[in-house]
């Protein structure tokens, strides 16, 4: 067995991919971190506390893992699901009743709930270790943006099964937008935005209308939420996560006592 492994690792194909021998000695353990695309997110060496589970709780890492898991299962779901009033509910139904090993929806849903919880716990830990203090202030702000986007991802996804649970949860949630000060047609101050006696803010032009693409949760809402959920928000989250990780390195790695 060992010789087969050695043969593979000595082959030209292997070397062309990994560019160096297996990381079994100190030199190659350093080199692997520098030359591998996925590993170069990390530094080469790190203080022990930075990777102690009882210090970081691994919650940022698990949140990132869940984001990746959601991406994979989400892409698989997109193969089955069509975001129209005609198909949405039936596609989900078929996914449950017809598809072999159809646990993608379960994994996606439970992964989303778990991600909300882990992102809260990650923030909790970062607060409790005081890791938002200089020089990491800005990374905390990036984190808060990630927190909001995580919640919005979950919220927009909630609508897609198009069952009673979905539309009423979204209806209740988005009704708030009606009351946005100045920009909602039942919000304080909307009357001030009028020209010559004509209200600019009506139920056909207010914040809620923009969110839903209509006066109530309907087909345009489904379309809007689908695009936000599958394209727009994940893209922004991916970029922000990249910034978040890059800043961790630039801010001197995981926080520790001076």
């Amino acid at each position, binding site marked *: 067995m060992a010789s087969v492994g050695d043969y593979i690792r000595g082959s030209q194909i292997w070397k062309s991919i990994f560019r160096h021998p297996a*990381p079994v000695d100190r030199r190659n353990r*350093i080199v692997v*971190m520098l030359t591998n695309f996925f*590993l170069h997110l990390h*530094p*080469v*060496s790190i*203080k*022990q*506390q930075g*990777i102690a*589970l009882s210090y970081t*709780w691994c919650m940022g*890492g*698990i949140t990132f893992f869940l984001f990746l*898991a959601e991406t994979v299962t989400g892409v698989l779901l997109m193969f089955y699901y069509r975001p129209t009033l005609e198909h949405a*509910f039936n596609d989900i*139904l078929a996914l*449950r009743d017809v598809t072999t090993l159809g*646990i993608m*929806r*379960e*994994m996606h849903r*439970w992964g989303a709930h*778990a991600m*909300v*919880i882990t992102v809260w*716990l990650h923030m*909790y*830990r970062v*607060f*409790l*270790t*005081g*890791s*938002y*203090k*200089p020089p990491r*202030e800005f990374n905390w*702000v990036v984190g*808060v943006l990630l*927190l909001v986007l995580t919640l919005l991802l979950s*919220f927009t996804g909630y609508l897609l*099964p*198009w*069952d*009673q*649970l*979905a539309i*009423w*949860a979204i*209806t209740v949630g988005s009704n*708030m937008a009606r*009351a946005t000060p100045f920009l909602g047609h039942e*919000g*304080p101050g909307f*009357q001030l935005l009028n020209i010559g006696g004509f209200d600019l803010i009506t139920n056909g032009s207010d914040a809620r209308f923009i969110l839903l693409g209509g006066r109530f949760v309907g087909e345009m809402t489904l379309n809007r939420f689908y695009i936000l959920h599958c394209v727009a928000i994940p893209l922004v989250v991916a970029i922000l996560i990249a910034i978040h990780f890059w800043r961790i390195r630039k801010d001197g790695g995981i*926080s*520790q*006592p001076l």
Partner: protein
Amino acid sequence: MGHNSDLTPPVIFGLGWLYLLLTVMNVWWTARIMRTDPHRDKEAAGWGMYAGLLLMATLAHLTGSSTPEHFHLRMPQIIQQAIDWCADPKIYFAGTTALFIAVVWLRKWFIQETVAWVLLNLSVLFLTLSMTDYDFRQIVGKPDNVPIVSMLFIVGFFTWLYFKRAVDNDERRAAGRPLFEQEKNEKILVWPDLVYTELICMVVCTVVLVVWALLLPAPLEEPASAVQTPNPSKAPWYFLGLQEMLVYFDPWMAGVVLPSMILVGLMAIPYIDFNKLGNGYYTFNERKFAILTFMFGFLPLWIGMIILGTFLRGPNWNFFGIYEPWDSHKLEVLNNVNLSEYFWLIWCGSKMPTAPAGSDQLTQTGYILTREWLGLVACFAYLAITPMILAATVFKKFFIKMGFIRFMVFSNLLLFMASLPIKMLLRWMFRLKYIVGIPEWFFNI
């Protein structure tokens, strides 16, 4: 006994798994005590006997030898009635706040492993026994609510872990020893230590997710219908804290202003916390104020309100005990009074100022402002004058260190956070509805 019929054999079988979990937990605990400290053999024997009892309960449930009618291991009626009797938002909020204070106060006691273990056992037992109740199962057993129950345990565990590490570090500081994080903090190579930790973590997470997905089907209700409104209509669970605020505030506050303030406040934290201590290690003593404020916001206000909104709010957003059937005809008398009504009708004994019919815009505005003057002044004073009083008294040091602008931002954020418990108290004590009530402008506070 009518109430027995709700226990079906599959439910009893399911309870068996919970008892099995408890058994395994306590066998492990017994073994752990015996291994680490041979002098604690009496204690170990006690835990061993307890584990034996649990094993018997497990077997009784899993072998299905008891028919539902003859099933006795259930939550005693008297406890159920006692819990439902004190089911009320006031008691709930006071209880969670008291629990929070107790945990902080008694942290040295609470971080002991035996104490934590007993508490864990009690809470799992409570959950297991409660599962024998039909109404409890209806709400806690909803697939979407399963993560929330586990979140409770997880948040509890990490809060415990935090206090353990913080108390340890505070004692180290007091004794002049290095912090826990400073000991054993050599540089090590990321390959293999971190890379393998991550790999194992990923495998474990994948397994958990797959098993969870196999065991618990995702909910799917009837196809969407724009005419059949479910009662209660609930937002997704992570927003139920905000939905709960609707009881005390109008949507523009509960749904827009306060959530925005939460986010702005979170982002502002690094820029208003001037305390340089406690960066990169766990501590309580060195940053008491920051920790207490954040924890109060996160535990009783955020998590606590989500639990309340999820498990205790039923039809018409009425409050229900955990064992109480959700009766959509339950009546709750709502005769709340505005501050302006208190002022004009009760204190002054006159009528509400109302503009004469057909009067112009300006006159109407004048009447509205006169009607609500006290509330408007109170709100203005709350946001503009309280910070000054705070700066001159309890927060004197903060004010000097922070400077004017930073202090105003800080104190206003704090006041917005405090506005929720304040509004709750006013509602419960004086049945106060709105401090400022101007429905004409959708401006109610």
